């Protein structure tokens, strides 16, 4: 323990206060105890671990949400685009022409590839065009196809495309078509379209809210 500055010195002289070799005044304590440091480090570690865990979870959650949001946004835009063409549908070739005439609703299988093909008026002066929407189940990508007008209805596998497929949306795991009862639509023919945005399919599928659009068919 260092002597106090106001303690009387021997011989009545006030001796100068001893100076530490480093130039700093010597203190009673030169830092925290090992115990204090360990406690602080422990606490800091706990906090950092909690914050880190939270941060990782938040980043994961955010990335997942952003991903779902992107899927949803793309599916919504695809839904509007498809609706614009489906409202001009003159004749449905695939999956089942009867869907347009009040037949059983059609739902795409979650695996494999599903195609909706129909004929609609082309821009003048061209004749009708045959347009398709293909949902690739393995890639979960929705594409628009433009076929040659001589679409072989009975042998659709031999149909020729006029241009490369155009990507409409990614992250679409389901598609459905149905025709609402005309008596509930003021005597008009409507066609319903459903797209299911999501990232996984099959068992344990994680999908978003389906997007449903109904358009009046025959607006030429």
């Amino acid at each position, binding site marked *: 323990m260092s002597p*106090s500055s*106001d303690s009387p010195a021997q011989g009545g002289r006030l001796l100068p206060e001893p100076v530490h070799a480093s130039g700093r*005044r010597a*203190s*009673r*304590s*030169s*830092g*925290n105890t090992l115990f*204090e440091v360990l*406690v*602080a480090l422990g*606490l*800091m570690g706990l*906090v950092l671990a909690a*914050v880190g865990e*939270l*941060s990782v979870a*938040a*980043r994961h*959650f*955010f990335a997942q*949400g*952003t991903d779902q*949001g992107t899927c*949803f*946004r793309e599916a*919504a835009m695809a*839904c509007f685009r498809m609706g614009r063409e489906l409202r001009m549908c*003159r*004749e449905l070739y695939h999956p089942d022409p009867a869907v347009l*005439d009040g037949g059983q609703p059609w739902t795409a299988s979650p695996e494999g590839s599903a195609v909706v093909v129909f004929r609609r008026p082309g821009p003048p002066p061209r004749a009708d065009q045959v347009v398709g929407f293909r949902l690739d189940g393995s890639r979960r990508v929705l594409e628009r196809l433009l076929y040659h007008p001589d679409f072989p209805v009975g042998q659709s596998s031999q149909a020729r495309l006029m241009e490369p497929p155009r990507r409409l949306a990614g992250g679409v795991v389901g598609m459905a078509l149905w025709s609402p*009862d*005309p*008596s509930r*639509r*003021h*005597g*008009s*023919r*409507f066609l319903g379209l459903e797209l299911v945005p999501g990232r996984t399919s099959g068992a344990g599928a994680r999908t*978003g*809210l*389906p*997007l*449903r*659009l*109904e*358009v*009046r*068919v*025959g*607006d*030429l």
Partner: protein
Amino acid sequence: MSRPRPRGISLLEVLLAILLVFMAASCLLGLFGSGQGLALRGREYSIATLLAGNRMEELLACPLEDVSPGTGEHSEPYRGYTWEVTLHDFEGDLKMLEVLVLSPRGARCSLRTLRRTSEFFGIACDPWAGWLVFSVPGDPAVRILQDGGRAAQGPSLPSGPSPARAGGLAGPPGAGFLWVADQVHRNVVYFRQKESGGFEDGEVHALVPPSEAKTPAFAGLASDGFANRLVLADRANRAVWILADSPVDSERVRGPLAPREPALGTPAGVAVDGSASVIWVADAEHGCLRQLLVGGEPTPPADYEVEPGVGWWNRECFRPEEGMGSPQGVAVNPWSSAVLCVDEGSLHLLEFVPISAGSYAPVWSRRRLPDDLVQARPSGICLDPFRNVVYLNTRRGQVWKSTLVAPGGFEPIHGGEGE
């Protein structure tokens, strides 16, 4: 005696620092959460837009008279999304139709459009007797216009639970009969002329639709020269009906008759030739004329759609190259060699002439309607084939006349109520 200040950081300072770090981290992490909330809200906006669009699409397929304001909630999977439909006056006969959809978190989508009341007012002429008969807005009685331009009150529709309003007309009144559509009670009334003058009380005919169809809302009416067939344009079912004078019950009422591909939009006017073999329908929504051939098979049949038991719908939408806006009344001469229609969209009187029977070449002629006539909103049209004169009536109760052979202007021959 003062103690020297201890060196290093105290436990309290460390804890304070940790607390500050924790608070800052919490704030930063909170941004992730609020970002997610905003993304979710954006998704609800998209769904609300889809739902509102679907509802509006459905309402646009419905005649304005059948649109009823209301509120409700969507079913699964959109439970929690509510909708509200409102309809209020905008300007003149325009109405504002609004669809509002609210999400559970308060995302709101409102779609609005203007629609015009689509009541139809018919006109029929009797070239032999020199009479014109026409309906006027908001009145159960039709008007009879004789030479000189003075309109007398004609037969009146029977009143029901609410006052009737006369709409489409058919049948030359001078020939002894007249059909009048009641736009309120949605039926047609048959008037027979007395030998002593005037008309007997009307016989009400309510056409009963099949269970899946709606109660018809008749616009234009037309009858053939022999009064064997009455053709009615039905806005509610987007179809036409045929009432035939037949001893067979099942053949008396045919309807609703509508082509499937392409479908009819909103039928406004209808016309039939002298032998009731060709029926023309004005499609005000799709802006074209449609043709129904009654009876025999046309050539080539590939361009036609079978209307079982009645005839064939021509798949072609007849319109000039310049386009057609919103055809209202349509008229055809007894020989089916000239078809006329008044187009409220392009503001022209349109006429096209066939080159050979059954084959209508796109030879159209157009005559601009005068501004005063446009302002009065033309509705029905009738043709005097012997004098080659067309008569138009308006939604303001006016009657106009124009000569076809020496195309001149349009002249008003009756200026509306009070004259």
